[in-house]
């Protein structure tokens, strides 16, 4: 180990590293060129489109395309237009989607991971495979399966009927869940306080609609397909904790709940952060499912709206503007979440705890 290190010491000019820089550039060139040509330059081009009145005709760089400043951004955010209402609706739909999907998929993934990680469990391999399986296939295939399950006369409603309940016509039901709930308490229409004001062209009352029944199907779909992937991430972290710490906790008389919340969960914090961030980023990008189902106001999301606005309605500037708002929003969310999670537990304490538990473990093993 130490001998090769020594030969590597003389960095530049030495015969052994001759031509290394050239090889380095050669090796990295394909990846860099692809990233530059198909990622960075296109993003710059799209940013220009979002500031222009390009209508899809010829190149966006041709002379007749005009710079219009922030007009496209204004059209979807501040002006009272149809586009603004669509954008507001898409944001609302996706907001409820995120609020339900992210916590539920994280909790379910963690639950599954803890369950299949138990040493005594028989058929662990089978259970892991079963829970991971929905993550394998394409979103198109999964949507087909879910559409079939949630037909008006489909499997889900047949099961509900067996319990005496009548299921809705899921994917064709645009009522908001919270509106249905309010309706059950007799509040069928908006109180004037909520009907008048609003944001992004959507009244407060409509902001409070909750996810539509159709969107609920997609929420279940997302939890169903992603929980297995995230289960694997948690599982990896759990295996790194190892059984010694469990044993040590037991020696100290910690019960299962106490052990989970005081030992397992703190040690899983980095993974928890990863899963929450990945979940948050992913759930603001719902596109495939909506595309396969053909769109529709009740399941509209910003990701699908930007596609429809550009490719179907040929409002390229507005579509690109939505894309950039989404882009910035997702990046800000990522940074924000990272910051919040950092602030909550000071590093020193974390290290101290970890060191303590390590000592505890070693003592216990001996």
């Amino acid at each position, binding site marked *: 180990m130490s001998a090769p290190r020594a030969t590597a010491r003389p960095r530049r000019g030495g015969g052994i590293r001759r031509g290394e820089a050239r090889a*380095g550039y050669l090796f990295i060139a394909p990846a860099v060129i692809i990233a530059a040509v198909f990622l960075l330059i296109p993003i710059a081009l799209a940013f220009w489109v979002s500031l222009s009145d390009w209508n899809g005709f010829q190149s966006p760089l041709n002379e007749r395309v005009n710079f219009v400043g922030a007009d496209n951004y204004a059209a979807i955010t501040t002006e009272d237009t149809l586009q603004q209402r669509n954008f507001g609706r898409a944001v609302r739909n996706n907001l409820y989607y995120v609020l339900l999907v992210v916590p539920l998929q994280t909790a379910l993934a963690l639950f599954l991971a803890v369950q299949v990680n138990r040493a005594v469990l028989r058929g662990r391999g089978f259970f892991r495979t079963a829970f991971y399986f929905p993550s394998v296939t394409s979103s198109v295939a999964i949507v087909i399966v879910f559409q079939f399950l949630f037909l008006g006369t489909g499997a889900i409603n047949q099961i509900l009927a067996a319990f005496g309940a009548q299921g809705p016509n899921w994917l064709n039901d645009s009522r908001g869940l919270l509106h249905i709930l309010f309706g059950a308490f007799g509040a069928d229409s908006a109180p004037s306080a909520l009907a008048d004001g609003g944001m992004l062209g959507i009244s407060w009352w409509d902001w409070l609609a909750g996810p539509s029944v159709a969107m609920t199907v997609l929420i279940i779909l997302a939890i169903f397909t992603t929980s297995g992937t995230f289960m694997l991430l948690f599982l990896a972290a759990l295996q790194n904790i190892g059984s010694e710490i469990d044993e040590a906790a037991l020696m100290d008389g910690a019960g299962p709940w106490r052990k989970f919340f005081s030992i397992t969960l703190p040690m899983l914090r980095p993974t928890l952060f990863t899963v929450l961030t990945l979940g948050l980023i992913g759930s603001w990008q719902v596109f495939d499912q909506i595309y396969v189902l053909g769109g529709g106001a009740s399941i509209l999301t910003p990701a699908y709206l930007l596609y429809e606005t550009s490719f179907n309605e040929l409002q390229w500037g507005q579509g690109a503007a939505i894309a950039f708002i989404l882009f910035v929003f997702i990046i800000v969310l990522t940074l924000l979440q990272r910051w919040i999670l950092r602030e909550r537990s000071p590093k020193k304490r974390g290290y101290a705890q970890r060191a303590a538990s390590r000592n505890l473990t070693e003592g216990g093993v001996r």
Partner: protein
Amino acid sequence: MTTTAPEVPSAPDREPATGRAPRILKRRKRVGAKARSGILLGYLILIGLALIYIYPFLISIAGSFKTDAEATQSGLSLIPETITFAAYERLFTREPFALWAGNSMLVAVCVTIGRVLFDSMAGYALSRLRFRGRTIIFAAFIAVLSVPGVVLLIPRFLILSELGLYDTYGGMIIPLLSTAAGVFIMKQFFDSISESIEEAAKIDGAGTFRRFWSVVLPMATPALVTIFILSFQGSWNELGHFIVARQSPELNTLTVGVAQLVSGQLGAGNQYPLQLAAAVLMSIPVVVLFFIFQRRIMNTTAGAEKG
């Protein structure tokens, strides 16, 4: 050491679900029977969950062999009253399913080869080779990692049109040939393995490319398999990029073609067995891949097992 010890404690793991945790804590010695029923309950919950995860796929397979009417009316049953292959026949005779499958395979194979090669080359350069700007390039790749995929729909279409690659196989394949995530995985891998064998080859006078090809790549097999699986699965299941990169029906991949079947653009809106058959068939390659590499998928994503 670990075999007997955790068995006793993990039994009450599930007990809290029944709300009896405190009592068990106090009288752990006497809960033999209760622990047993706890284990049973735990299994029941897991089996129930596993059923929820698997059953949808089973009824989908069953549904693909049903008649249109039966599939719509009794979607829950696992055994069709009359087994018919009509949906599958139709996929291959009246829908260009074989063409879509061929396109998907072509794209997936090219993308996979490209990523395995380019990502490992870039990862190697970033990990081992010294050249000016290396740190900046690596930082740029990290930044690129956080660009959300759907934001690229419009940009990709724009650049493909500008370059004259729109609606060509080139436009469908080239942008996917390398990913920042793949480069990152490979770099991490090369960072984790010892440099000594390469150094030996270096002293023997092997050039950088030769060394990479015959010494480094064979050592990197575990990471390459990871890239291989991710790339094949990713490009086979990709939908968004193919929506914006092409328009001719001849260039339809399975995802695009089948999505059009579902949204009724090909006039098959309510024919559920047909859609289910398509979903079943298009899943086969990735499912086969999954079962071949099952152990590896479960472990590489999950990191090395202890011990």
